[in-house]
């Protein structure tokens, strides 16, 4: 399972393993510390873990969020690892 980059690989895993999910976890794809506990937690919710850049939501991640239309999204870490602009971009996907 692979995409063109880390974001694409996480999106591919989500696309192939999670036909539907009400919960999605999103973490910074460039730093692991805040993401480590998120993997098992996402598994417990039955949802995928998608990756983002700190200030911009990658298109591969955007596509999976739009496909899944989740009821909740958990963002891992504070504003220094996932900025508020990413959250704004995610909100913009669901007007």
């Amino acid at each position, binding site marked *: 399972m*692979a995409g063109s980059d*880390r974001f694409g690989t*996480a999106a591919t895993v989500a696309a192939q*393993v999670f036909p539907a999910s009400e919960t999605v976890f999103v973490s910074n794809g460039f730093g692991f510390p805040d*993401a480590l*506990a998120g*993997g098992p937690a996402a598994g417990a919710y*039955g949802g995928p873990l998608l*990756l983002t850049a700190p200030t911009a939501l990658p298109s591969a991640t955007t596509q999976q969020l739009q496909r899944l239309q989740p009821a909740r999204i958990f963002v891992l870490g504070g504003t220094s690892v996932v900025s508020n602009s990413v959250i704004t971009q995610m909100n913009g996907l669901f007007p």
Partner: protein
Amino acid sequence: MPEPLASPRRRLRRLAPIFLAALVVGAFVPPRQAAANDGFLDGPVPVPLRGGGVKGDGTPSDPQPTGRLIVRYRDGVTELQRGRIRAADRLEFATSVALPNTEVVVPVAGGVSQALAQLEGRSDVLYVEPEYRRTHMAGPTTEPRYPQQWGLNNTGQTVGGFPGAKDVDMNVPEAWNITTGNPNLVVAVAVTDDGVDFSHPDLAGRRWVNTDEVAGNGVDDDSNGYFDDVDGWDFCNDDNTVHDDVIADHGTHVAGTIAASGNGIGVAGVAPSVKIMAVKFLPDDPNGPFPADCGTDTAAAAAIAYAYANGARIINASWGGTGFSRTLHNAIAAAPNALLVAAAGNSGADNDVQPVYPASSDLPNVLSVAAIHNEGRISGFSNFGFTTVDLSAPGEDIVSTVPGGGWAHFSGTSMAAPHASGVAALAASAKPALLGNASALRQHLIATARALPSTLGWVASPRLIDARAAVVARPDIRRLSGVNRYATAAAVSGATYVPGVPYVFIAAGSSFPDALAGGALAAQTGSPLLLVTQTGIPAETMAELLRLNPLSIYVLGGTGVIGNTVFNQLQPLDEGGGVFRLAGTDRFGTAAVVASEAFGSGVPTAFVANGLNFPDALAGVPASAVLHGPLLLATTTKIPPATATALDQLNPGRIVILGGGSMISMSVAAQLDDDVYTTGP
């Protein structure tokens, strides 16, 4: 130092399969057999049934509650804990549900709504909902003529002689999983037209009724200026019959597109549960003799005023003409909380050059709609306008109801507008805040419309109106974070797990490999993962461990990453199951040890990721909870011996490589594919 009561190996071998088996029946998880056999589950996406699913009765009956509640507890809530919850909330167990962690309960004191509120407030309850009794099997998608309704669901079917472009549609069945329209909201969609034949069986139950008026008593009971206007009003003939002649088929067709019942007959409206308010002002036969009041700007203004005064907040206007009318403009402006959905016109002309009214009215409560055909381009007849036409909707070869109990295919922007009105009704049903806020509803419909690049340049927003996107709820986006990585992990755990978990996995916060390999096992056993330093347990981790009260604790990695001091500090924190260390000589070895502790030979899946780079393995952790199997580590070019040995022992049904060739090279992939694991560094 207290010794573990059992060796880690024995303990996990004994316990892990139990919890893995418990997970197998979980809703999130397909059966192991299927996971092992059916590829990567990349089949068609099942559409979740939400909000009670699609109801298909002609007169959608009110929900029939059984007085019981369906409760789904979070993973890990034991039967004992459920019993405590039931006792505390005064509930009685009724029956179990064929879903994991789910049961039906009956309130023994207080009402259903009180019990609902109590259970909703509990962190260990994933969801609770009233149980309803289902009575009808037919849904809108089983309507006999539904397969022709390409605007609702374009399967590529041939309509009007033209094969369609698959999926160029408004995603209506997807929207129906959320709502088919709320008949109890003031969502009556006014059809200002040539009348609606409500005797049509496919419109059964769709008639708006003025409940403030008493039929046939010759009195204007509600003092709205119209006598006995139970069904609406006819401004053409100035009477209370809203359909007069079988030749008047336009409004009946429009009404069917908006709201034809899902009753096993004919077609399905876009919003098959909403009500239609018939307001007649167009003549029965525009080519024949008709009363002088028919079709005039004066009559149109009166029709709009009537619809607005009687509560309609979506008004369909599948009519128009060139030439500005201040009267018509002012009538629309005087109904500011109603969205007027207007047909752009059927001259194939540019409305930017020659405006068509009311479509071209420069008002925030007017949505102007062009027509597309089933191949996804603007219909040849449709008016367009880069600035004055908002967007497009299906309008060519549209099958809907006609007077006399039949159905017919019509084409026109008159057919596009009601598609948009239907979606407006769905959106207002799903999002009540949009009802009565016309400019917000208009903006919402435009913003949620799906891209249709072929209409670029033809309309202001090169988009096709999208029912599903218009009704989905915005997700609840929540940040899980703490002052540092340790606190973030504790926050994640706190938001996910209830106390009394079987295991907690402890990893070093300073490096990722052990946490990821262990994380896969944590994911599959429904266990949290918390972080420590090499020399200490951070306060947030300690507090979360005390809250979780785990049976056993597993420390991931050797003393180089988590020292014995930490290991010893963890000793008093388990509930009797023991504290164990899972460690190899390096990250690859630790992953192999985790795998061999928890998984036996013949495991359905094994994941292999690059152990020097975290992102791909991280994404694989939740996936492992679905596909079942350990996460092993390699480098870009080598399969380390520990990994090879583990794979030999596990003999997995398949190996999922996480990441592309730059992470795991093609030669390593080929070795994995050939079962040649023993060619390590």
